[in-house]
């Protein structure tokens, strides 16, 4: 595979990591966050700017970046999660916009809207990205299948009932929000490593919305569904870049087609393509068996 193709796969993997972070927040705990790109920005900028300023190895600043992301998430979550769900969505969205402006304001360090490009080249970026994607997916899977996953799904469906079974919903939500935001932060760092330039525009509210769209397309409560949709929905528009209709590249229609997709999914499969089911090989085999059984029956 050439570098371009590897780059596409890396893009998709980064998208998978970001969406997994959103999955933990939105699908498990039912918090609709519209500002997850902000955490990507925080982690990425801190990692690369601090590394450049003080000449510290990237691995250390990356840890710092993730920690700051987690801290910001905690500070946002403590007051906001006492409010109703819709306010939470609004405030996270506001936080995302605020972060983008702060980055522009701090142009002395971040180089403002031109973007920060003094990112060192790292060897084996491809394998780092793929490896971390696998790890993050494993973490999220393990989380979903643990007592914490169950408590999250319980509090998402019925918070009062969950509380009356001893689930500390407020603390649970804060914890989950911090974890999801740190994972988004990781996606931001990898985005920087791969592209070697980060701009405030790259982490705008478009990205937050895009991640939510991928999540809902794949399945509102399906980790595999949202991971697959994050991977392929990121990949497909890029591969269609060269296809032209009426002299316009199909990629130009990306936003339009996202809108169309969401309309179709909400209309025909309100819970996303996979809904609450997880994709498993066993399930796939069973699905094909049933399909063939139907065809046999028709004959």
């Amino acid at each position, binding site marked *: 595979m050439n570098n371009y193709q590897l780059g596409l796969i890396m893009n998709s993997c980064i998208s998978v990591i970001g969406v997994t972070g959103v999955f933990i927040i939105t699908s498990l705990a039912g918090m609709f966050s519209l500002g997850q790109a902000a955490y990507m920005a925080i982690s990425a900028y801190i990692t690369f700017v601090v590394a450049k300023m003080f000449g510290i190895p990237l691995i250390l600043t990356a840890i710092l970046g993730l920690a700051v992301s987690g801290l910001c998430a905690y500070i946002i979550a403590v007051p906001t999660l006492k409010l109703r769900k819709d306010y939470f969505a609004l405030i996270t969205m506001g936080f995302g916009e605020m972060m983008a402006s702060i980055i522009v304001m701090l142009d002395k360090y971040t180089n403002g809207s031109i973007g920060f490009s003094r990112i060192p080249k790292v060897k084996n970026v491809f394998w780092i990205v793929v490896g971390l994607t696998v790890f993050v997916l494993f973490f999220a899977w*393990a*989380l979903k299948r643990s007592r914490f996953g*169950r408590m999250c799904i319980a509090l998402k469906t019925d918070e009062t009932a969950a509380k009356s079974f*001893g*689930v500390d919903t407020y603390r649970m939500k804060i914890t989950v929000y911090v*974890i999801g935001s740190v994972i988004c932060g990781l996606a931001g760092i990898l985005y920087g490593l791969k592209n070697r330039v980060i701009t405030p525009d790259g982490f705008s509210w478009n990205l937050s919305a895009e991640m939510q769209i991928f999540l809902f397309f794949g399945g509102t*409560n399906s980790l595999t569904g949202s991971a697959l949709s994050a991977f392929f929905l990121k990949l497909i528009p890029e591969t269609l870049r060269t296809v032209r209709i009426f002299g316009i590249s199909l990629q130009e229609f990306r936003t339009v087609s996202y809108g169309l997709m969401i309309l179709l999914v909400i209309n025909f499969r309100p819970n996303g393509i996979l809904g609450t089911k997880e994709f498993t090989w066993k399930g796939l085999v069973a699905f094909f068996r049933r399909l063939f059984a139907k065809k046999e029956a028709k004959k």
Partner: protein
Amino acid sequence: MSANDSILSCNNLCMYFGGVKAVDAFSMDVKEGVTYGIIGPNGAGKTTIYNVFTRIYAQTSGTISFCGQCIDSKDQVAVARMGMSRTFQNIRLFSGLSVLDNVKVALDYSGKYTIAEAILHLPRRQKAEKEIAQKAMDTLKLLKLDQYAYHSATSLPYGIQRRVEIARALVSQPKVLLLDEPAAGLNPEEVLQLVDFLKEIKSLYPKLALLVIEHRMDLVMNLCDYLYVQNFGRTIAQGVPAEIQTNPVVLSAYLGEEE
């Protein structure tokens, strides 16, 4: 009966919503192993009493003590963890989870592993998960619900959902179980099954104090040892079922005054 063995008691409990006196000077004493019924017409404030007990609402005045502690300043989670368990009038099972997982949720707060161990899938998680699953399955077996363990909870018949909800409330071995209209929405046959089911629970958990809110006199008379009759937030009568059945005040509240 001495005052010492009461688990849950409340004194002059009042809950006002603006000008509406939903619960007015309600006093109650709950002892272990006894089944209590709270009856009364719609809007008599029965569910509000439960909601105050479980700390969904904070009372306007009055005190509640549970297990010898005053719980006036405790929150819903703390009281649940102390051993107060309840069901809801409109069944509130967790729709995204299977029957077994629904029951597990009631044990999850006490699970013996941290979130880091969960994410990393460490051995302690496996061991604790096994324990939780075992306990949940034991309760389902005890209540003869194990055949539904892997069904999606909300796709089961209404009568079964009721029982799953009771199983979920029982799995953590509570000291007090509050049942909020367990027979609501059930057909007559299911009601009879429910009475048998509740009697079985009483024999399986002899120390459990059971509180039942109910409209249906037959169910209450069959099941309860002591009754409180509520009307417009006030207790109009209390006593053993035989007394209540012939109490003129209760009859007039239920059937209307004789002209």
